[in-house]
């Protein structure tokens, strides 16, 4: 048993083989080892959602898992949302609705909202609030954030 382990994972569509310290969280590895600093570090106890990434289709707090646990998994971070033609409809909606204030919570909000829309393309306001209940916004832009998710869902439907 070693202090580091080589893991095979797909991050934002790219297959990677990474040597990670077994006592580092996924958040540590994303930010410090492979420079994906879009994912934010904040409470590190699972309360704020700033570190949210999507793993095998589900949103999770990267601060609450060891990097070795994603061996064999598929991870999407906020850097993976952009499409070839530019921002994703959801990202665009955040800008249009003025949902981004200081911006710190936004990567996490985007990831939670992306996962929500993948599962439920036509959510109600209630469902959006529940889907994003694990994401705190210090600037309290909740109303705009909810509107942005709604707008993106409508856009996708059209």
């Amino acid at each position, binding site marked *: 048993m070693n202090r580091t382990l080589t893991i095979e994972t797909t991050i934002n569509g790219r297959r990677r083989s990474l040597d990670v310290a077994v006592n580092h969280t996924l958040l540590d590895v994303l930010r410090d080892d492979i420079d994906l600093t879009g994912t934010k570090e904040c409470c590190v106890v699972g309360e704020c959602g700033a570190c949210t990434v999507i793993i095998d289709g589900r949103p999770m707090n990267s601060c609450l*898992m060891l990097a070795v646990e994603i061996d064999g998994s598929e991870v999407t971070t906020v850097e993976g949302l952009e499409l070839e033609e530019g921002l994703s409809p959801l990202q665009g909606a955040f800008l249009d609705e003025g949902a981004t204030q200081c911006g710190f919570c936004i990567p996490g909000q985007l990831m939670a909202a992306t996962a929500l829309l993948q599962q439920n393309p036509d959510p109600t306001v209630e469902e959006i609030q529940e889907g994003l209940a*694990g994401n705190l916004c210090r600037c309290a832009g909740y109303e705009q954030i909810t509107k942005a998710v709604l707008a993106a869902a409508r856009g996708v439907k059209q």
Partner: protein
Amino acid sequence: MNRFQYARPETVGEAVALLEEHGDDARLLAGGTDLVIELRNRWVEPKVVIDLKRIPDLAPAIVERDGFLSISASTVMTDIAEDERVQRYFPALVESAVVVGSVQIRARATMAGNICNGSPAADTAPPLLVYDAVVVVAGSDGERRVPIDDFIVGPGKTALQRGELVTAIELPIPERPYGAAYTRLTRRRGTDLASITLCAGVDADGQARIAYGSVGPRAFLVEDESGILGDSTIPSEDKIDSLDQIFYRASPSLKSLRASPDYRLAMLRVLGARALETAIGRLTKELVS
């Protein structure tokens, strides 16, 4: 985090052997939503962390077998809440699973972990008590089955002995109509520990039981001896004395920042009455269908 070794056993036997070898120096990792916090804060400094998620026998699965619904150790809250059989037979368990943490946490946290951590506030403990769940424990001598009421011991303590781990939690599928409901008290919506967790169950004869947590060292299950709590013809206000008897084991901490003891005791009655009403309503629906 301290430096530890990361072990990834592929069988229950290997995991048991590691536990026997390392004893208190080993920690089991399932969802990790509690463990990773403990590691980071150095509340625990294990020499070995044993990841259970690569053991095929513990892989996420909910299966019906011999009159039980068996939920494997690495099944997460989201899977439990979304399972159609759990929804049908054990609605109170669904209600407890969907309030754990946030979407992100429910996608990761396991029910077995929720119980094994021994938190007095564990959301799934009261419904598991009401539904008479059985914990399947593996050790070097094979498997044993422990009723959940005996498995839960106290803060951070369970009936697990050195070298043992939980492989599944089994719920007996009710043969007769049964009504149960879960409710809890928190300061706010979203990620918060409950100040009260409570589940009420009523069987087809009108016999009621209530399990409640977060108001003492562990969640307690108490049968209604008065026989009136499950009676739908008796109005809630006339059930207060019987409810107070049910809550005799509550001893809320004076030191808690979440809610004062008086408030918790007063709210126990309110939540108790509410959960009973829902449970009776569900039972009635079952009886007519």
